[in-house]
């Protein structure tokens, strides 16, 4: 079966998704799941009255089946009790859509998971006991492999000469305001500057934050540089996505680490 061979119902929910948007309020819970490898990110919002779900909305970045499954999930859960909604499975959603191509079953059918996340966070917020299997362990700071090996072969401890970076894909580690200023400066000579930070957000002066937002610098949050790789010079960076606890390689030409 082709990966895009969808049922009419899937196509209908893709073309006319139900309940697009967000919800706000004290009685609202949000669940977010994503699988960066496949490229789907889903957010499910539910409004809860007592133990009943009275409204549901969603936003999805993803392929056709990702959009359709989240749309269908929000349709199905309205009126359900929280216990009923916790029992809703990916399989139930897929069946309601007259099936999904097998290759799409696990990857882009995460909507039920997002729903469960929302319910768990709601219950947790009310002090209820929730079995949480996704508790993250704070990682210890690991030492960076390859920094010394590639020093002056693509690893820089400062940006002294902008021309050194012309048209080079440059990864710069966030080490304070200066690193942000240098990142913005680098965009004058290269279209690709990535600023890496292990935190969820950057604490910057409003002025610098505005400058950064207006620039072409790509900020990677919750990310840690683990290793610099290459044959003779810097060619790749091994990066850990701390949120997903996943490692991946990014092709780069230069790494800037300002102490």
């Amino acid at each position, binding site marked *: 079966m082709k990966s895009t061979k969808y049922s009419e119902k899937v196509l209908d929910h893709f073309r006319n998704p139900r309940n697009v948007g967000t919800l706000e309020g004290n009685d609202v819970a949000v669940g977010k799941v994503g699988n960066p490898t496949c*490229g789907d990110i889903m957010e499910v919002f539910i409004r809860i009255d007592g133990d009943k779900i009275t409204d549901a909305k969603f936003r999805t970045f993803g392929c056709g089946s990702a959009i359709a499954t989240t749309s269908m999930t929000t349709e199905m859960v309205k009126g359900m009790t929280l216990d009923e909604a916790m029992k809703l499975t990916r399989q139930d959603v897929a069946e309601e859509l007259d099936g999904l191509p097998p290759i799409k079953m696990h990857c882009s059918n995460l909507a039920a998971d997002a729903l469960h996340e929302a319910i768990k966070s709601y219950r947790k917020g009310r002090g209820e006991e929730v079995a949480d299997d996704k508790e993250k362990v704070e990682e210890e700071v690991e030492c960076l492999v390859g920094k010394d090996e590639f020093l002056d072969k693509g690893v820089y401890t400062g940006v002294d000469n902008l021309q050194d970076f012309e048209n080079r894909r440059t990864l710069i580690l966030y080490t304070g305001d200066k690193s942000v200023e240098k990142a913005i400066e680098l965009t004058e000579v290269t279209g690709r500057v990535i600023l890496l930070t292990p935190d969820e957000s950057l604490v910057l002066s409003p002025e610098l934050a505005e400058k950064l937002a207006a620039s072409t610098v790509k900020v990677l949050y919750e990310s840690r540089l683990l290793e610099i790789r290459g044959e003779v010079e810097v060619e790749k960076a091994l990066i850990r996505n701390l949120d997903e606890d996943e490692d991946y390689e990014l092709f780069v030409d230069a790494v800037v680490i300002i102490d």
Partner: protein
Amino acid sequence: MKQVYLDYQSAKPVDPRVVEGMKPYFSEKYGNPSALHSIGDEGTEALEESRKTIARFINADEDEIIFTSGATEAINLGIIGYALKNQKKGNHIIISEIEHISIHNIAKHLERSGFEISKVPVDQFGRVNLRKLEQRITDKTILISVGYASNEIGTIQPIREIGKLAEEKGVAFHSDAVAAEGLLPIDVKRDGIHLMALSSNDIYGPKGVGVLYMRKKFRVNPLIIGGGQEQGLRSGSEDVPGIVGMSLAAELMQKEMPKEVKRFTSYRDRMIRQILEEIPDSHLNGHPTERLASNTHVRFDGIEGESILLSFKDRGIAISTGSACTSKTLEPSHTLIATGLLHEEAHGSLQITTGRFNTDQDIDSVLEFVPEIVTRLRELSPIYKSN
């Protein structure tokens, strides 16, 4: 609904003139080129004339042309055949990070058989870095494989420079020319290519036919053993109608290429300019100038390629994407990743490839729909910044 086809990279219609020219070779001139009677002679003549035509198409000698069942077989024969023939000289092979998937899989296969594979990175535009290529060459290196141009992002490689480097280092140079044939004038002598794969369908010939160009003194081991056709390197009775079709396609292509390339270039430049101007947070993938005339490859922040493809499909337009969700493995395009994109960026791409039967109206219709499709999908998206 009228269908607009803008996915010429994945398959091309056979030119009707080619179909006409092939017809006599099914039921009238059906002889086996190996047979010695006059019915067989007709087959021999057609085969050898076709060989000359293909040789002219790439400035090769006719005894350097091996007909195969397609480009994939030609690539297998070129790389695996050469590796097996030369394994006493060395076991190291270099390929580029953005080779066609078939070459990545051949490399994995050879690795399991004891060969060592290195991959040479590309820059942000998809061009192979010559310095990094040279850094990888050792005294064990027997073969370098770099595609003439990328089948995905259309970036044209510095082929002559790579050919020169291979010559200096005494290493064989294989190039998969499938994406480039018919869009760039290929000259194996000028380019310094020793082994090269061509496909018939990519120049509007029938599917199921291909060619391995094999320079003298760069012989390969056969992978298919039998009656000894094609210098013993590709046994099996020749597919004369298909081969005639490919040579007719090459003849037509040689005549029409300059005009076609001019036309495709204007389509491409118009699409790239208009999309980048009209759509905020859109980016060009691949090289701004060193790219195939037929190739437009753009990406949009915050949306996913399969959704884009489905939206175009609903409007009767066939395009392609670098998205993982349309592939068999669900991995994002290795080519886009090699240019330095993050997974989420590689997912939001749109690949438009034009061809012989496109018109200005086809380009109008795709450009008309891009803004509304991108806007709608961004409204749905939790990761597009303005939401």
